[in-house]
Structures are given as C-alpha cells and as structure tokens.
C-alpha cells in the first residue's frame, strides 16, 4: 500500500504523482521506443494502428468521456483528416503544414456539427452525429473530382524536409511521437480550467452554467478539439493504408471508434489507449477463433456481431471499461485484505432537480 504525503499544491498538478509512475511510464516508454528491435513486421503494423487509434481515442474521449457528448459520426472527422492529407500531399504541401491543416479542417467540421448539437442531448445527439457521418460519407463518394469517389486516393510515404519515412520503423516513430504529443496536450487540457469545464458540463449542465461556464462555447470547443485530434489520426491513417476510399469512413468505422472509448473506460485517457489496443487485437482473436469453429459456423459478419456484443456487455457489466477494471484490481491488491465489495459502487442520486431538465 502506498501513502503519498502531500506537502505542496504543485504535487497535485504534477504529471508523475510518485516514483512508481516515473518508473512504469519510463519502462513503457523504453519498450515502445525499442519496438523496431523486438517487434515483427506484423506487430509493428499493429503498433502503427494502435497509435493512430489512440489519437482518435483521445479525441473521442475528450468529447464523449469528459464532456458527455456522444458522437456516432467520428468517421467523418477521420475522413476529413485523411482526405486533407491525401490531397495536400498530392499538391506538394509539406507534411507539417498538411497535418496541421488536417487538424484545422477537421476542427472546422467539428464546429459545424457542434452548432446544432448545442440543442441536442443523448440519443438525439447520437442520431444527429450519425446523420452527419452519413452525409460526409456520401459527399466523399459523390464529389469524385476532389476525392476520386470510389476509386479512392493513393498516398506516398510521409516526407519531412526531404527525409522519406518509408520504413516501418520510421513511420512508427512518427506515429508514436504524435501520440505522445496529443496525449500530453489532452492531459494538460484536463488539468486546466477548460478541461474542468468539460467535466462540469458532463456531470450537470445546470450547475455548470450557474458557475459561469458558457455551455455553447465549451461544447463547441469540445467538438472542435475532439475533431482536430481525430483529423490528425485520420491523416496518419491515410498514410498507414496508403490508399483511402469512402469504404473506410462508414458508420461501422464510427461505431468502432466509439467502441474504443467505451471498452477502454469512459472518462480515462488511459482507456483510449487500452481500447485502441483492444480493438486492434480483437479481429486477430476473432480470426483465430474462426479457425476453431466448425465449417459454416463462422459467418463473415462475425466481427461486427462480436463488437456489438462486447459493447453491450461492457455497457451493462463494466461501465468503467478496461481501465476501470484495472483500477479495481489494483485497489484490491493495494488494500489486500481490506477490500470491500461495494467500494466502487457509486451512490445513486435520486435527488437531482428534475424540474430543471
């Protein structure tokens, strides 16, 4: 069991709260940095995807996990980022500029969808964002002049100041660096007034506005930041695949992205990474499982079914996701043998001001 003696307010805003943090994150960092030496080509490719999905996960976590706004249209922001990158690269724009534009254009799209979303909540917001996603998918299919329609767009490897990142390792370091940057930005945001305003909106809009939080402004901001991160993820995604077409930005993609945050654990940045790793590894597990199933018992839609099932099971039985589960296990061992059964149960509150809803 660890006791942390606090002697200074700065301790609470420090990133590494104690030596253990430094050690474990240092170790993780070292393992990740050394990946090109220990990982096979296949694992490297998985790591690319985990980084990319983590960035998108951070974005969705800010919006859904911390601000409490559901989005079933995040594939649209992924698409905006991906196509911006593809088109700008084709036009010879340097990578630093094009990926920034991917973020900015996505943020702009986020603001556009954020505006009507100001009046919508819960399931209605989900439907509105879903519709937005479908519209964007339709636009990129139809606007063939710009996007190439169903023929898609090809991308060359990333080139930074004349240095071609065409090996797996080089692209991996780019993804890793951007993941760490995005993660730090999110952590910083969440320990600042803006992040707290997001959490306030999630937990009680009434209270938030009575404390001076401008709901419209902060919700729009959450959409913009979330979309910007997703746009960055989209740009990397486009490079990873080297070929993009509307098929990659469907409703199913949006659901998969939402699965990241729900599986990982709503309201924890760690959850975004865990969730990303999980949905990247899951299809492999499914295809292994398919091998064991008798002929005809492995329908082609199995993956979607398993995804849906896991989503439902998590929402019902483990609403805090994988990270929440880990917290419980850790607390169990830290407190052993004093762990109580109801420790993580949250008191239900029936006392909310119903009339104000």
């Amino acid at each position, binding site marked *: 069991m660890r006791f942390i003696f606090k002697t200074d*307010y*700065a301790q*609470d*805003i420090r990133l590494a709260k104690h030596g253990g943090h430094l050690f474990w994150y240092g170790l993780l960092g070292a393992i990740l940095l050394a990946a090109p030496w220990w990982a096979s080509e296949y694992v490297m490719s998985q790591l690319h995807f985990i980084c990319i999905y983590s960035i998108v996960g951070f974005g969705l976590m800010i919006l859904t996990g911390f601000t409490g706004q559901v989005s079933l249209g995040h594939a649209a922001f992924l698409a905006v980022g991906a196509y911006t990158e593809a088109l700008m690269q084709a036009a010879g724009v340097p990578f630093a500029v094009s990926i920034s534009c991917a973020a900015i254009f996505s943020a702009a799209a986020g603001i556009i969808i954020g505006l009507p979303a100001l009046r919508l909540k819960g399931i209605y917001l989900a439907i509105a964002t879903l519709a937005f996603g479908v519209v964007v998918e339709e636009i990129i299919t139809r606007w063939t002049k710009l996007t190439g329609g169903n023929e898609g767009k090809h991308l060359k490897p990333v080139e930074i100041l004349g240095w071609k990142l065409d090996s797996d390792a080089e692209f991996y370091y780019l993804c890793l660096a951007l993941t760490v940057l995005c993660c730090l*930005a999110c952590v*910083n*945001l969440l*320990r*600042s*007034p*803006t*992040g*707290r*305003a997001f*959490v*306030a909106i*999630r*937990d*009680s809009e*009434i*209270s*938030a*506005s*009575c*404390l*001076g*939080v*401008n*709901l419209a402004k902060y919700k729009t*901001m959450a959409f913009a930041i979330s979309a910007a991160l997703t746009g960055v993820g989209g740009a990397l995604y486009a490079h990873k695949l080297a070929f993009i077409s509307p098929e990659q930005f469907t409703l199913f993609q949006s659901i998969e992205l939402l699965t990241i945050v729900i599986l990982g654990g709503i*309201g924890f940045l760690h959850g975004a990474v865990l969730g990303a790793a999980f949905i990247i590894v899951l299809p492999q597990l499914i295809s292994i499982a398919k091998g064991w199933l008798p002929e005809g018992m492995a329908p082609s839609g199995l993956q979607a079914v398993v995804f849906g099932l896991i989503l439902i099971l998590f929402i019902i039985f483990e609403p805090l996701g994988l990270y929440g589960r880990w917290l419980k296990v850790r607390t169990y061992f830290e407190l052993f043998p004093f762990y109580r059964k109801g420790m993580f149960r*949250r*008191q239900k*509150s029936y*006392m*909310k*001001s119903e009339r*104000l809803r």
Partner: protein
Amino acid sequence: MSFFKVENLGIRFGGVVAVDKVGFEVRRGECYTIIGPNGAGKTTIFNLIGLLYPATSGKITFEQKEINSFSPHQVADLGIARTFQNIELFEHATVLQNLLIGRHRHRKTALWQELLFTPSVRAAELAQREAVEKVIDFLELAKVRDNLVAGLPYGLRKVVELGRALATEPKLLLLDEPSSGLNPEETDDMAFWIEDIKRHLGVTVLMVEHDMNLVSRVSDRVLALNLGSVIAEGTPAEVQAHPAVIEAYLGKAA
C-alpha cells in the same frame, strides 16, 4: 442605490401562476430570507434570478445593471452564485475538482496556453488552488478533499455545494434551503457558516429556508410568500407574527 432588486416578477407554467408580481430589494451585506409553504414559488424565484427560465414579466437589477436579457453564465460572471435545493454537484469528480470548477469565472489563461501547460497556467492553477484551500479550511472539508462526491453522505454534499458557490467569490449568494435534510448538529454548523459568510466574507446572502430557528438566527429581513405572491415582509419576528403568514402555514382559524 440598490444592490439587488426584483420588480414585478412573474412567471406562469401553463395554467399555474408560480410567481406573481413579486418585488423585493436586497441590501448590500444583509441576509435576506424568503419563506413560504411548499409550492409557494421560492425555488422558482431563484431560477428566475439565475435566468434558467425566462420570466413572463418583471425586471431584475443587480448593481444598477438590468440582467433580464443575460444568459445563466453571464449572471454567474457578475458574481451571483447559488446552491440548489436538490444538490446539483459534479458527481464523478472529487470535492477538490468541484470547488475548482467554482473558480471558473476567475480563469485567466487561453486554450493554447492550457494545451502546453505554460508556466503562466501553472502559476494560475496554484493560485486557484490556494483560493479553493481557503474555502476548504473555512468549511472544514480537508478530510474529504480527494473523495469522489458520488460517495459522500448527504450532509457533506450540501457543504460541498456551499463551498463550490463560495469558491466563485460571489457578491450575492443564493442558498436554496441550506438546512433541508441536515441533522440538528449539521444545521447548527450551517447557521454558523452563513453568519460568517455574511459578517467576515462580506457576502450578501439571499436564502430560502423553512427552519424558522435558523431563519431568525441569521436573517436581517424576511419575505413571506404564498401561492406565488408576497404576503409579508419585515424582521423575522414581525413576519412570524403576521396574521397572513400564520394563516398561510396553519390555515384560517375557524
């Protein structure tokens, strides 16, 4: 020069006239209490002051500013803070975070600075923390500082909500039934705090309260309301002895 003034305030919900032609004035530095039986329209008046609903009629002025056309967050920015009768805390955040959100109107940093967590953000955060710690000291919340609100007992949640309102450093503090649901000991603490808030922090308090002991102890003036209309105004003793008030609470004498 009035500090806070409400004139001819009214609202109807469908057929129900919840508040009808209510007017009163709160002087700087006093504790002004609104009493009245259940459903008299007390909470509704608070919601109208906070502009959570648009009033059907009337005018609200705070420090010479007419605030009717403001939105709720602008009201908060002027220095009006409130608590809720049914507690509206940020459940999935710690007590400390709840109070820090109360500091929202005192934030000074821009988004890009926050994303980089520049030294100015760090300094601002430490300053906010210090301000919040003063409230924590004042309300003796140190023990639960890092607890999630969702796990706290009712009485403490009420104190946390009071703390969150205080963290905004309000000029006018609206308290909706601060003692409801509290045991006698907690009520006593609450009375003590309200007196202190008025005297030592110099905050003007506008309160809705049922507990007449508490009302007499802390209020300078009292307004009695029944069925949305004002029936009496004066010192606590005057209002308690007023025939219309007795009638409203106990019914007409046979």
